[in-house]
């Protein structure tokens, strides 16, 4: 057998409190499409970043066509023929497709500091021809459809081929999450075509897709390689079992702690809520109930969540809390109404990294640490220490900057922010377990159950379908900004992920 296009041995990467990669092995053969599967936090994105030089591993080796390499930047990785199509698109919207394709590797398209448009167009056209795309290279990128832009992105990555003089390795990170089903078919045709002259690493949350397009699937769990599957004849369930491991079968979601809810008077009642990206949303959440909202990227569920927190403008509709109508004109109004929000982007939106655990925890409910208008240091210390203990937050002290804690402990502080006031009635959780390891997730789930037991209503935008199914009492499926359907999700009668996927697309 020929030398593998790319091989990874014993890759290790530590982050504070988390072992993102714990000795990962991976082999990408020439002209094969390798799937990479794993739950969130399994180490997929860290591994991919290490392969394109965005992350420097602490230990382990990377071999390109048998040669050991050190990848310190995207440019170096491109020099070795490794390129990545990013999950968030990396094109400059106000440039033409051709400019984007040659950007950063202009080569003959620039002479004496000036663009040579003909050459550039020809170079770009070559790339587009390679993938059989009919996009006009001189079209402005922001005038292209999302799917076309992705094609431009792939064409751009293929430019590295000219640099390394070898078949490239193209990494596609969740390329399908924003595409329509027809566009996905086109993309898959492209990927099969790519196999002719490149190796591909394909990452997707949708296991059926992975099995459809890949030759082989490598599975990561908790930063380790746990095995691989030849896709011929494999079924999603088998893959899924490898991803979650044997520990996934016990009460990971603390389902025994789920509380019975009465829905006589809903705590939160939303009627006809509309905004820029969603329309006519009706939603009831009873006290103690956990309602999951699922949907693909672009379904509008994140925006609904933000709108309920007053962080996104709405154009119509009414929101009632315990029967009383509230105006969600600002985040302050939402806080005053007893609504709390945990954003998906913990590091940039959820917490203020350089500020202390104590300051982050009391940022919203200032009253809880003040006597009159003044901060009472003793009161604050007692309050914060109590919650640190109650949520078993591992921190050197309340004055440690929150940015120094591990992800799970950071998230507990962010959650505690809404609890210290003792007046929380509704929690909006946007991917509350994103980037957390399994142990930390389990603790967040337990906390959610405990809060539900005290009558807090919860809206959950889960990180995975499994999580939504495991935690929610009811699941709303959103497509294109509307509620498509509602699925009951009681203990003992949980739907399967496939049931939900059918409704989502």
């Amino acid at each position: 057998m020929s030398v593998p296009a790319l091989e990874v041995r014993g890759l290790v990467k530590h982050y504070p409190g988390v072992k993102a990669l714990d000795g990962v092995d991976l082999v990408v053969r020439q002209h094969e499409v390798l799937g990479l599967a794993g739950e969130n936090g399994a180490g997929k994105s860290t591994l991919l970043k290490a392969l394109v030089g965005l992350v420097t591993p602490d230990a382990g080796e990377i071999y390109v066509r048998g040669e050991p390499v050190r990848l310190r930047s995207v440019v170096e990785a491109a020099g070795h023929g490794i390129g990545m199509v990013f999950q968030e698109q990396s094109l400059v919207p106000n440039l033409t497709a051709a400019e984007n394709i040659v950007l950063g590797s202009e080569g003959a398209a620039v002479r004496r500091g000036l663009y040579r448009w003909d050459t550039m167009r020809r170079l770009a056209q070559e790339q587009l021809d390679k993938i059989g795309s009919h996009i006009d290279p001189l079209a402005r990128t922001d005038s292209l459809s999302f799917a076309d832009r992705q094609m431009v992105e792939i064409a751009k990555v293929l430019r590295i081929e000219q640099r390394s003089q070898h078949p490239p390795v193209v990494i596609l990170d969740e390329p399908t999450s924003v595409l329509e089903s027809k566009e996905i078919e086109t993309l898959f045709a492209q990927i099969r075509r790519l196999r002719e002259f490149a190796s591909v690493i394909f990452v997707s949350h949708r296991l059926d897709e992975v099995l459809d397009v890949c030759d082989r699937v490598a599975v990561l769990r908790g930063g380790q390689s746990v095995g691989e599957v030849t896709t011929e004849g494999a079924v999603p369930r088998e893959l899924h079992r490898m991803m979650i491991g044997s520990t996934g079968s016990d009460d990971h979601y603390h389902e025994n702690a789920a509380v019975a809810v009465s829905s006589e008077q809903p705590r939160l009642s939303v009627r006809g809520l509309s905004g820029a990206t969603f329309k006519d949303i009706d939603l009831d959440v009873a006290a103690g109930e956990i309602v999951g909202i699922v949907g693909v990227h672009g379904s509008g569920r994140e925006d609904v969540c933000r709108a309920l927190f007053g962080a996104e403008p709405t154009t119509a509709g009414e929101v009632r809390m315990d029967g009383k109508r509230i105006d969600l004109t600002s985040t302050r109004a939402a806080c005053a109404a007893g609504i709390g929000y945990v954003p998906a982007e913990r590091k940039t939106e959820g917490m203020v990294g350089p500020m202390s655990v104590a300051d982050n925890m009391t940022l919203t409910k200032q009253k809880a640490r003040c006597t009159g208008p003044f901060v009472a240091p003793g009161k604050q210390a007692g309050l914060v220490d109590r919650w640190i203990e109650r949520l078993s937050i591992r921190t050197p002290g309340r004055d440690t900057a929150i940015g120094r804690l591990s992800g799970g402990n950071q998230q507990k502080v962010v959650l505690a922010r809404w609890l210290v006031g003792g007046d929380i009635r509704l929690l909006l959780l946007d991917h509350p377990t994103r980037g957390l390891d399994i142990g930390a997730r389990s603790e967040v789930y337990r906390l959610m159950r405990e809060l539900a037991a005290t009558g807090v209503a919860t809206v959950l935008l889960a990180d995975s379908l499994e999580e939504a199914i495991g935690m929610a009492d009811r699941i709303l499926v959103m497509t294109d900004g509307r509620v498509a359907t509602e699925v009951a999700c009681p203990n003992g009668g949980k739907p399967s992920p496939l049931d939900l996927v059918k409704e989502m697309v």
Partner: protein
Amino acid sequence: MSTPVAMKPAAEPATAKSTARPAARLTGFMPLIALVVLVAALTVADPDFLTQRSLTAASRTAAPLIVLAAGATLVVLCGGIDLSIAALASLSTVLLALWLPDLGGLATPVVILAAATIGAVQGVAHVLLRIPSFIVTLGGMSVLSAVALVVSGAGTVRVVDDTPVAWLDLYLGGYVPMSAAMALLVVALIALVLKVTPLQSWVSATGYSESAARLAGTPVDLVKIGAFCVSGACAGFAAVMLVSRQFSGGPTMADNLLLPAVAAIVVGGTAITGGHGSVWRSLAGALVVTLLRVGLPIVGVPSAYEQILYGAIIVVAVALTLDGSKVSIIK
């Protein structure tokens, strides 16, 4: 000099120390070290420098700068910048000189109030119209300068009877200029109010990460407008100090204080990106900047080279005081 971090209980210095690297701890004291080194250098160059007389003179010169820098520090802590402070102070000197004959003792609070209002208006423009503070206050600077020229008739406005503001030109115990004492009081007052109220965490959160602050329900808009308002009030108070010293108001009287004030803030180690810093740091920064201005001629630097050295020293001082670990993006 301490650099207080809000609500840090005195009982817990051990934890705070253990989490900060020694180098980072040292950078925290850099403004203070720079100040001591500067005083020492000046004393070596001119043994007469470390006398009561020249220290009194220096602190008197520093007073308006300290007040200006302290107010603007709040805006910087919120992640913005106030470029209008010097122009606003100039305008305030004119207004004060014009109003003193009619309002007498009332003129001082009225001018400070007017300056605070002008500051607040700029804050409202920044928040409501979503214009970067840099642009709003750059425009404000231009407008206020022009207004000052118009109302003053483009000339100096003499103050005939300066009794209502003369108290600022007195000396406490014969040595400490009243204006310097008041400047210190302003800094202490701002620091204290921040420390004992939720404002410190609101201001820091707004400066470090506005979106996170907003999503935590922090009254970000009010905090920012408040910062501009205090910055304006400080410009007004600095104007009162200038008038008490110069017995007149002038449409460009404080204009040359803008760069020193911004320099004082950054030399003090307050991050220009917001969040990290304090008014105490700006006090140290203002003293460093003042000593440089009065000190360079003492050392014998020709006035033509003064500006070169002054600029270079400020850049170096910032390089030394900037705590890289606290500021991820330098812009």
